[in-house]
């Protein structure tokens, strides 16, 4: 089970590539304009540290982490962790 669901607000992304460098397992960039893409919105638990760092380090605050949809005992998930630092 994943630890979080990754949300990317494409309209905010400024193509810095920071998330791709931080968590290449989870983020990539669109070839045509460098806008980030999420490769898997439910990353494996061992990627937690990297994904949190990518969310916190996004200069445009475009990445949010929300509780996974399948989190036990939760309705609607907890409030997202907001980036940047």
């Amino acid at each position, binding site marked *: 089970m994943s630890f979080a669901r990754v949300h990317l607000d494409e*309209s*905010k*992304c*400024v*193509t*810095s*590539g*920071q998330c*791709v*460098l931080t968590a290449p397992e989870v983020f990539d*960039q669109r*070839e*045509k*304009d*460098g*806008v980030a893409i999420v490769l898997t919105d439910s990353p494996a638990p061992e990627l937690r540290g990297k994904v949190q760092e990518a969310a916190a*380090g996004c*200069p*445009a*605050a475009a990445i949010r982490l929300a509780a996974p949809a399948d989190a036990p005992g939760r309705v609607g998930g907890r409030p997202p962790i907001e980036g*940047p*630092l």
Partner: protein
Amino acid sequence: MSQLSSELPSFPMSKAKGCPLDPPPEYARLRSDRPVAKARLWDGKEVWLITGYEEIRAIFTDPRISVDNTQPGYPWLSEQQRTVVLTGGVKPVGRMDPPEHTAMRRMLGQGFLVKKIQNMRGDVESLVNGLIDDILAGPRPADLVTALAMPVPSTALGWVLGVPPADKRLISLVPRLFDEDSGLEGAMEARNELFAYIDELITHRENEPGDDIISHLVGYYQKGELTRVSVLTQSVTLIAAALDTTRSMITNGILALLQHPEQAAALIDDPDLAPAAVEELLRYTVVTEFSSKRVAAADIEIAGETIKAGDGVICLISAGNRDEKFFTDPDTLDIRRDAKHHLGFGAGIHTCIGKQLARMELEVVYGTLFRRIPELRLAVPFDQLVFRNTFDVQGVRALPVTW
């Protein structure tokens, strides 16, 4: 808390004698007393100076902050700066606010894809090795500004921009554009030559497109999403933003390592420290001290002050990077620390678009230079080095070294 205007400190502030790479001592006092404070500029205008790490980050990421330099409150630092604005009458990406800014970053994004920059690494390594071969084969002392710090960023930028490899005009224009002794007239002349030269490149790419930034921009122009003059402006902006910064960061970093031999020794012993060394050197030897100028688009309450709509703001990156509230022992250069959250590339939506390229170049240069010439040392006493500070960038005029 409000300040009496009569007692406002004037800005820019002087550096301590003997430490041209250190921020002016006044920054530390401001940061602890008043991390958001007013100062007076050369033209009599008031400006807010932001010196605290968290406050700088807050300003950089605040949607009420604008980069529009046509606003009357925009803080110019000299008449020359206002006159020789390197644009062709349209806004460069760095002076655009969203949504225009977001769209422009995307038109440029293709040229700076992380993968693309990573693929360039081998070429940059060959370039740097070749230049070091020449240095080793040439006379001593060697000047690292001309032998290394100029050719590396201009060649690499040439590759991403789409400059034909044999064309060396870009390299020769840089000193004329950015060095003090070219004067206002010389800088204007070089600026006009640069525009004419890039115009030529654009025409070339209209007919023979490649996978490079100018070709991509030309593509947007041909689809009607960009004017031709904007293609010109954005290309020139990249040159202005990339070359003086990277060449200065190359030499400032080498100089800082030479001044701290135990740090250079650590890098020589453990080449895997190169990426961390790059981040720490970007934190410690800031090159773009005054570049982060802003105008408030609405009232902003911060650190007990109110920045009023229309007020000019300058984020002093070098002050934030030495904030003891964020970095332990900030005045110590320590390439083993985790410095990656430094402000050397800015923060927020205007974060440097070329930072992955610059990081890669710096890593290759510092790593290769100290590995291949571990006996590297200054050929003149430190106090005989001549420093320059043009536009927003500070660096050394020449860096004579021997080994």
